[in-house]
């Protein structure tokens, strides 16, 4: 029950993109086409779950015992960057189709602040190992949900007559704002 609550909280109430506003760069950059949005969502879920778990392990088993909590940021970034590289090599060898599908987005996740943000949030909220795992998955799923919803909206906007000054990124930002407001309806659920 606790984990279901956590999943609902991370996907809807505290949606990483639309409630916490982390990782907005890929949110705007990769949402022009549903296909790439879905690819990015899968890549983020994959990396975020692994990063959340590994950084939790590093924090709890390495940094805390030696009282090195102040090294959290640099250690997490190092781990995330290496992890993404590793995942990229692994996918290229074992799942070339998925690798080709994710394309440029996989290396881009290295610099995605949503990934780092979730790792830090897990620590700040003093989650345990399982909680970190579930929360990481929930946040990543929320990222994917928001991205895919947004991509659907943007594909519809392409068909609409948008005034020239508002075209492309401008209308996307307005849409993101409206989408974010709609996610505020989940506030107070959990």
């Amino acid at each position: 029950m606790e984990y279901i609550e956590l999943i609902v909280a991370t996907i809807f109430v505290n949606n990483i993109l639309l409630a916490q506003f982390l990782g907005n760069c890929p949110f705007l950059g990769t949402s022009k086409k549903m296909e790439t949005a879905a690819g990015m969502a899968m890549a983020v879920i994959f990396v975020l779950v692994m990063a959340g778990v590994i950084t939790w392990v590093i924090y709890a088993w390495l940094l805390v015992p030696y009282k090195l909590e102040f090294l959290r940021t640099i250690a997490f970034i190092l781990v995330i960057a290496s992890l993404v590289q590793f995942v990229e090599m692994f996918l290229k060898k074992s799942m070339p189709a998925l690798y080709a599908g994710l394309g440029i987005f996989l290396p881009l996740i290295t610099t995605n602040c949503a990934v780092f943000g979730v790792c830090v949030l897990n620590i700040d909220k003093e989650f345990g190992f399982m909680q970190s795992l579930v929360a990481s998955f929930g946040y990543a799923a929320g990222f994917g949900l928001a991205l895919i919803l947004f991509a659907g909206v943007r594909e519809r906007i392409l068909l609409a007559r948008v005034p020239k000054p508002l075209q492309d990124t401008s209308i996307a930002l307005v849409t993101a704002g409206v989408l974010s407001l709609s996610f505020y309806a989940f506030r107070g659920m959990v």
Partner: protein
Amino acid sequence: MVIAILVMLGIGAACGIILSVASKVFYVYEDPRISQVEYFLAGANCGGCGFAGCGAAAVAIVEGKASPGICVAADSESAINIAGVMGVDPGTAEPIKSLNTCSGGDRAVDKFIYNGAMSCAAMATLYGGKRVCSIGCMGMGDCIKACKFDAIHMGPHGFPVIDEFKCVGCGACASVCPKNLLSVKSMSQRLLVFNEEDQALAPCQQTCPAEIDIPKYIHLIKEGDYEGAVNTIRERNPLLLSCGRVCPHPCENYCRRAIEDDEAVSINQLKRFVADYEMNSGRRYPISCAPDTDKRVAIIGGGPAGVSCAYFLRRLAIIPRFMKTCPNWVASPAMAFPNTDCPTRFSTGKSRVFSTWGLMCTTTPAWGVISPFRACEKKAMTPFSWASVPGRTTNWAFLGRISRASGRGSISCLQSRIRRKSAFPSANARPLWAVGTPPLTV
């Protein structure tokens, strides 16, 4: 402190070791040419080639799906380097340039005083612009603002002028023009095109068999830019001296001024004027050609068709070599059109033009002994058995004879001879001067 350094070193080392092991374990063979090709591409990831980026373009080149010259941002040297990596012919990386076809500008009067936003896009929404010409340039310069290479400037007459040397052919200007006046094409795309009925062209230009941009060259003559006018004509028709004299000018029949209770503009006379101007100026205006290729072609016959063929092939960077019987150029008016006022030094002038272009000429004895034709005869595939016709003559000999005939050297003399059929061996035989190239058309 020491512990912090050690821990960070430990994490870094662990990550490094894992990654280096992974790079061996998960090694995937990739064609080494891909990275070599990518090195020579511009690296701008502009997408101008139609692929997602330089990496994707490199993969496409290595897989043979794209030619080595697809990169629009890199120079022709990169295409040669890439072709070297791939071991293929670089082909001709022809530059694409923007062209503004509208030279109306301020000549079109205004319908109303416009006080809105200073952009073509805004103005086009208000009755299609302030100028009475609804299809022409509005002169607000959206293309100038769109150009990232400083290649377009507003000309003195209210329409933008493109600097061909600065233009890289990115197409930004063409995409912002609300009237779709600008087009970004390569030279062969512009040369190898025919006017279509549904194109909104001036009636004279639509009627001209050579599809010369008549409004443009008349305007340039008015401006005193004779070189520009010559080059505009030459863009479609290399024989402007000849055509300025003999063209039946169907364009003038359709001239709008003739409809409006006035006489048609003497389009052909203007052409003749600029052609003579160039000839008398003693120099030949250069015209742009595609980058050199090592392709060669032999052209049999130096008549108007052969000369035109050579001209356009040369502009497409294929070097022609003539095989012809006459030492003079038949395409010259002095030779082909024995009209008394034809400048005789024309032919030497023409020869000079061609020699500066590196055109080669082999004078062969006569049509009948040119080997391909002899081969045809031997195989009983004779396209015309004129060799056996009594009283045969060749067109250049015939025309030359007329032009040399003093006092009678004129078109009318030629026509009267034809009428009397004195040049033809018999009434039902094929007219000899129709063999080969008809001299009166281009």
